[in-house]
């Protein structure tokens, strides 16, 4: 297993991607996530981004978890390590490994693998499916050839989500990987909606910035 002894040669993960697509993944990408990994996980520098279209009539979270297990097994069989970061809505917090989940954001894997950019609404936008995807990531030390990353926002001049946000939380700035500190969404304002409309109990968001996005509507038709 000694990494230093073996010359690192990248390999294509086409067969893994095909396998995951067959099992129900809407999108699969591999990102080089070396930059910006926190110290505990620097050895896992590839992120396999998995996305499932929420407009599919299936239990999205279960599917994502199952896909992650398939990827982990595939990697393990080839002698590689992996760490599955579960979907945000499925974090079993009594596990010890759950302490590390917050070290990595699915958005990083998604943008690094070129499957999307971070929209003005602060969410991953994919060209075809918009923000209507649910994400999970498998980190691994397998030297898989990475896909081409997206580093700039593709939202252009569109400001629909800015205009329609009922709490005025979307600032309208464009994301760029080089400027990670830019505040796209004021999450306190976003959460404040909960007080006004108590029926949004579970999640802080009303989801308007998803449904209004032209890319998301595009995805809805496809689903």
């Amino acid at each position, binding site marked *: *297993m000694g990494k230093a002894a073996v010359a690192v040669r990248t390999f294509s993960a086409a067969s893994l991607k095909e396998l995951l697509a067959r099992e129900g993944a809407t999108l699969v990408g591999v990102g080089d996530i070396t930059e910006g990994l926190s110290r505990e996980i620097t050895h896992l520098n590839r992120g396999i981004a998995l996305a499932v279209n929420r407009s599919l009539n299936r239990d999205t979270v279960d599917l994502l978890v199952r896909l992650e297990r398939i990827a982990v097994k595939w990697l393990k069989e080839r002698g590689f*390590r992996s760490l599955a970061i579960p979907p945000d809505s499925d974090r079993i917090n009594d*596990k*010890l*490994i759950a*302490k*590390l989940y917050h070290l990595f954001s699915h958005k990083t894997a998604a943008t690094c693998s070129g499957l999307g950019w971070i929209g003005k609404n602060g969410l991953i936008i994919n060209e075809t499916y918009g923000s209507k995807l649910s994400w999970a990531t498998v980190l691994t030390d397998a030297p898989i050839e990475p896909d081409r990353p997206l580093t700039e926002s593709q939202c252009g001049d569109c400001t629909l989500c800015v205009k329609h946000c009922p709490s005025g939380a979307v600032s309208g700035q464009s994301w760029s990987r080089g400027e990670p500190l830019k505040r796209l969404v004021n999450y306190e304002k976003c959460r404040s909606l909960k007080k006004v409309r108590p029926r949004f109990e579970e999640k802080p968001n009303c989801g308007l910035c998803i449904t209004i996005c032209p890319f998301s509507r595009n995805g809805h038709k496809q689903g």
Partner: protein
Amino acid sequence: MADDARKKEILEKLKNGVIQYDEDACKEGAQEAVDGGLDANEAIFDGLVAGMEEVGRLFEAQEYFVPEILMCADALYAGLDILKPHCQQMDLGLKGSVVIGTVEGDVHDIGKNLVKMMFDVAGFTVYDLGRDVPLDQFVEEQLRTDSDLVCLSAMMTTSMIGMPKIIEKIKAKNPNCMIMIGGAPTSKELADKWGADGYAEDASNALKEAIKMVSFLRKLREEKAAKK
């Protein structure tokens, strides 16, 4: 259990399940151990703990890092949860209870959780106070439970300074209680100065110390079994 080969197979499955952080294998192995009438303590010590010992070695050799350790620990717990109800209390001349927590002002608890795991494995009753625990709560909990051991953890110098106060208070009320401190800013000098009985500076050392402790228990078990 009559079939030695089968027993070996189950122990091996538990051990490898922990090393390869395979929760399903650990669950399967544990269930097989229970169904096959294998002694639960034996399954824990010669299966799960044997695996964790190897994990500790891999960590020291920098083959494994923090994520792997945590996943191994989760796999161990998956097996332990099944085996625990079938355990007989080991008679080691210790009551075996411990109060553990991360001190006020500190939310880092990876090391604490690893140490807690080894106490769980060793059959201690663990009173886990969690993280960011007010100082007096350690003292109160020790008095309430009359535990043999109190473990204090801190990752930051700023939160560590609360430790000597807790040690002093506990020792004043209950001089026999052993106190261990752990976390990056701690040292043997500080442990000595504050009157603590032991220390571990980080998660890996804490794990190593805890493995040592549990390995020692394992040896005691073997010796006892040999005498029979």
